[in-house]
């Protein structure tokens, strides 16, 4: 039995859970910076993104060490190679939270808030997708991973609604144009974050089944 190897794989899981939690925090701080206009929240977003980058490097080193020392095959190889791919997506999630925080530095909020509810729903859904995608990896749960992929439709729909909100507001000429661009970009970053969570979920499915999720399969599930 490979007790030491199993311990190292457990350590990999713990680091991934930690990196997933950092991603959630980064999104929360970034949206907090948007809602509150708080400098503290912005700083926390940037700091958290740095922690995410550090965690990525740490997990990458552990995976390379495991590949070298344990020469994994079958499910072990899939688990480690999936982890290596997942952390790239998680690192991008951190970057996008940072991008949102950067926009909030200069955003000029109008008196009458536009599409606030939809942005808030996008945030909640995107965060839950990040949490659940990592959760599915750790619990080796195919159903959770598949549910994450399905949830992407919700975020995509919310993004369209944000767009519609903005178009309506532009027609009514309520707000300076700069704000619309900023809020649309924020919505796009949230939409991209959910796409990265989907990528993570797809790697979990590969890790568990050895099969890549292709478009056809997703379509079949959606029907």
């Amino acid at each position, binding site marked *: *039995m490979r007790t030491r*190897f199993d311990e190292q794989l457990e350590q990999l899981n713990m680091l991934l859970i930690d990196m997933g939690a950092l991603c959630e925090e980064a999104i929360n701080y970034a949206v907090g910076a948007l809602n509150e206009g708080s400098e503290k929240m912005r700083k926390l977003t940037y700091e958290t993104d740095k922690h995410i980058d550090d965690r990525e490097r740490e997990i990458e080193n552990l995976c390379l060490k495991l590949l070298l020392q344990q020469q994994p*095959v*079958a499910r072990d190889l899939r688990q480690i190679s999936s982890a290596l791919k997942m952390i790239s997506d998680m690192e991008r999630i951190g970057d996008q939270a940072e991008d949102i925080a950067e926009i909030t530095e200069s955003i000029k909020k109008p008196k009458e808030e536009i599409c606030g509810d939809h942005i808030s729903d996008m945030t909640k859904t995107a965060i839950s997708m990040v949490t659940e995608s990592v959760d599915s990896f750790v619990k080796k749960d195919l159903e959770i991973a598949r549910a994450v992929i399905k949830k992407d439709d919700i975020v995509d729909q919310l993004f369209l609604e944000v767009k519609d909100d903005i178009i309506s507001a532009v027609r009514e000429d309520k707000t300076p144009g700069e704000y619309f661009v900023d809020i649309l970009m924020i919505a796009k970053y949230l939409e991209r974050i959910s796409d990265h969570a989907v990528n993570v979920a797809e790697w979990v499915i590969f890790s568990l089944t050895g*099969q890549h999720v292709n478009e056809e399969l997703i379509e079949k599930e959606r029907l």
Partner: protein
Amino acid sequence: MDKYTIENLELFYGDFKALKNINMKIQEKEITAFIGPSGCGKSTLLKTLNRMNDLVEGCKITGTVKLDDQDIYGKIDVNLLRKRVGMVFQKPNPFPMSIYDNIAYGPRTHGIHSKAKLNEIVEKSLRDVAIWDEVKDRLNKSALGMSGGQQQRLCIARALAVEPEVILMDEPTSALDPISTSKIEELAMDLKDRYTIIIVTHNMQQAARISDKTAFFLLGEMVEFDKTETLFSVPKDKRTEDYITGRFG
């Protein structure tokens, strides 16, 4: 094309059933690896492929093993079978004679006595295993003075000298250092263009590196047989998964 077709093969050593209902087709000009824990039957199966088990007392075989379309347990000249199916063992076993005579031994027993023809066979066989340049100036020296890796390549050259169609390798690198091991592996991959190679190995990385297909055996049963890449990435049977990931038992 299938080189071997094995159907309902069972092998008994006295009352002990060492192979249980083996059914498989081994493709020509590919490397097929047999893996599994000690005593799983992989070497036993290898030996049935050129009737080496004939020499074991109390050994009984049922089912069929066809080489091309010929049942090798039917009416067949066993010497001719072993000319078609060469074997390389775990420990290099050069004959206690010169390098030249080691290679020429097989062709001579098959009736080739022309010096020019033998010279040609010796050079070609040694070139095929990439040790011609290393030994061409000492062909008349004893093969026992060669290094372990060279001796094993000599044994492969000796097998090639009779122009076989299949080469069976029973853990051919387990007694060799890593450099010699990688030379034998490279050699096996070069040779598969012209020969069908079947290798028994305890080294799973070796099976993953060099073979096209891999069969996993356990307690005399062939648990799984698939493309090597598939078997080592997405094995279908839990027993295979547990064995190759080192969580067996």
